[in-house]
């Protein structure tokens, strides 16, 4: 039961990363792939009215965490307080720049909001990347399961660590490259005209850049969490995740070389799913590793809510999930196809 709930919670976070990750990527590339004001609105129209729906997965992830792993929520939300507030502010600014930017047809107004849009998306990719690095590396949990940490200490990965150290920073750089590549792949699928051509070109460069960065953080991860690989090789989910990643990489290459954008985009999604699933399964059952003493780590089995809560959650989750999937199918059919420069096909964005 607890392993299943760990998988469900991870699944919701992964769904958020692939869905909103493409918006982060598209947002970061916004100023590179789109040169004219019309093209910039085109990029935003490609993200369309879907971005707020993508954030639902993040909220759902948080809700599931409260219901099933309340102690992790209590510990992590206090410990990562400032980082999470920063993420929240960036999400607010990102949403606001999308909503407000198109309201006044003025170069200064739109230029300002485009800047806020790109800035907040870059920061979000960096912050989520650093957050992923933090979860993998662990936090300085004390015996009560609490921790607090500054933004950085001595940039080392053991003992009293900060949010940023050489490991989390390199994961953040990797996340920026990965999400930018993902976003470029999405824009290549979703747009036409000059934006499409530029996005397709950027996507190739960025995916090439992702490979050495991935190799780098893989090697780093072995040093940072030398306890994990020994357990991970016995976990079949890790091998499946790795297999998905490799097949997706092959599909991605074939998608780009044959110009099948849908294939490339799906491969890009599954590649991220594979990577995150491998990572999530590798650290199971420890949800938050303690950098001070391994016995302080928060294990999924120790911190799960009581049995009634798990049963209640298991009844409600499929209902909510079915609704979310039904909406996903509806909205995907509604906004299918490419977005052109001239005619804004996606409402008032």
């Amino acid at each position, binding site marked *: 039961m607890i392993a299943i709930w760990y998988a469900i919670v991870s699944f919701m976070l992964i769904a958020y990363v692939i869905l909103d990750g493409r918006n982060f990527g598209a947002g970061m590339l916004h100023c590179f792939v789109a040169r004219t004001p019309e093209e910039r609105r085109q990029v935003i129209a490609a993200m369309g009215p879907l971005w707020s729906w993508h954030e639902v997965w993040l909220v759902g992830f948080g809700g599931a965490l409260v219901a099933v792993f*309340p102690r992790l929520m209590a510990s992590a939300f*206090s*410990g990562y*307080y*400032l980082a999470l*507030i920063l993420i929240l*502010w960036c999400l*607010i*600014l990102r949403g*606001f720049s999308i*909503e*407000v930017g198109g*309201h*006044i047809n003025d170069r200064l107004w739109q230029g300002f909001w485009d800047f806020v849009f790109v800035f907040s998306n870059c920061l979000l990719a960096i912050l989520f990347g650093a957050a992923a690095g933090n979860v993998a590396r662990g936090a300085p949990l004390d015996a009560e399961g*609490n*921790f*607090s940490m500054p933004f950085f200490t001595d940039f080392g990965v053991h003992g009293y660590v900060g949010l940023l150290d050489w490991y989390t920073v390199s994961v953040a750089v990797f996340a920026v490259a990965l999400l930018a590549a993902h976003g470029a792949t999405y824009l290549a699928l979703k747009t036409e005209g000059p934006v499409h051509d530029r996005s397709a070109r950027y996507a190739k460069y960025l995916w090439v850049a992702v490979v050495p960065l991935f190799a780098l953080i893989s090697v780093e991860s072995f040093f940072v969490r030398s306890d994990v690989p020994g357990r991970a090789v016995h976990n079949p989910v890790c091998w499946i995740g790795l297999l998905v990643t490799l097949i997706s990489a092959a599909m991605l290459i074939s998608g780009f070389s044959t110009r099948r954008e849908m294939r490339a985009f799906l491969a890009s999604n599954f590649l991220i799913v594979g990577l995150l699933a491998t990572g999530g399964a590798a650290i199971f059952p420890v949800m938050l590793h303690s950098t001070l003493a391994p016995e302080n780590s928060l294990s999924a089995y120790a911190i799960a*809510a*009581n049995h*009634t*809560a798990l049963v*209640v959650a298991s009844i409600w989750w499929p209902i909510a999930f079915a609704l979310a999937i039904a909406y996903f199918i509806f909205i995907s059919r509604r906004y299918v196809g490419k977005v052109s420069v001239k005619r804004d096909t996606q409402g*008032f964005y």
Partner: protein
Amino acid sequence: MQHPIGYRIEADGSLGIDSLSAYLLNPWALIQFAHNQSAALVTGSFVVTAVGALYTLRGLHRTQAALYLRAGTLVGLLASLIVAFPSGDQQAKMVARHQPITLAAMEGKFVGGTNAGVAAIGQPNVTARRLDNSIEVPGALSFLANGTFQSYVHGLDEYPADAWPDNIELLYYSFHLMITLGSIFILLMAYAKFQDWRGRLQSTGWLLWVLMLSFPLPYIANTVGWMTAELGRQPWLAYGLFRTRDGYSKVLSNGDTIFTLIGFTGLYFVLGVLFLYLVGRQIGRGPSEDAAVLDIEKEQALIGVPRQEHFV
């Protein structure tokens, strides 16, 4: 958190869910939800009415302005009545039954008694434990809390001072401001609807001015109502179970929370200014041409569901 039910206390002292149906059908939650939603409807109808009054006073968009005024005053009157009765009334009875200390503090009632009155005016004096300069409506509180004029209402003196809400003055004034504004809403909307029914609303200049300028009042009423709920719950985080002073995070410093509080204040201020600017701009632009050619009869059939302008 106001009236926790359906829980059980685990071996390690943490709370777990015990009965989902009790948790979801918490009567307090249902009544508070109804109170909230009807207050939201009041807010919306005041804004719609204010826009209608603005257009009428400027002599613009006659057709839409008449519709806004008619729909706004009708929904506004109904919603203002629902906010007070039954939802507000039931809420007060809930407070009287489950949080008697809160009720006493809301009314500045230091000494308990039968035939308890509601203070129309008065200032709570916590040090001297009395309500200064008060004019009371006798029996009204007993009636509102328990349904009879003779019933007994508890006073703050019956409870230890560490069980009192921390800021009784603020709680008292928040509650009374909410009640006053709520009464004004009912009177204003009833009079406006009456004039509308007589066909004189659009020619009564002063009433249009009042309707136009009163759109911020529901926002204030909502805020002080919220303050009443949260201040009244003190000193508990989860009422009767968990003290606020035990509930703070031990790993955060004052600096962290002050920093984020200032940040949120600044961010919300900027967003609020932008929101007002953009909404004001949209209102200044007026209804679009498509809306103007819509058949007014069709719109009237939809009264109560006024056409929504997509502002943001």
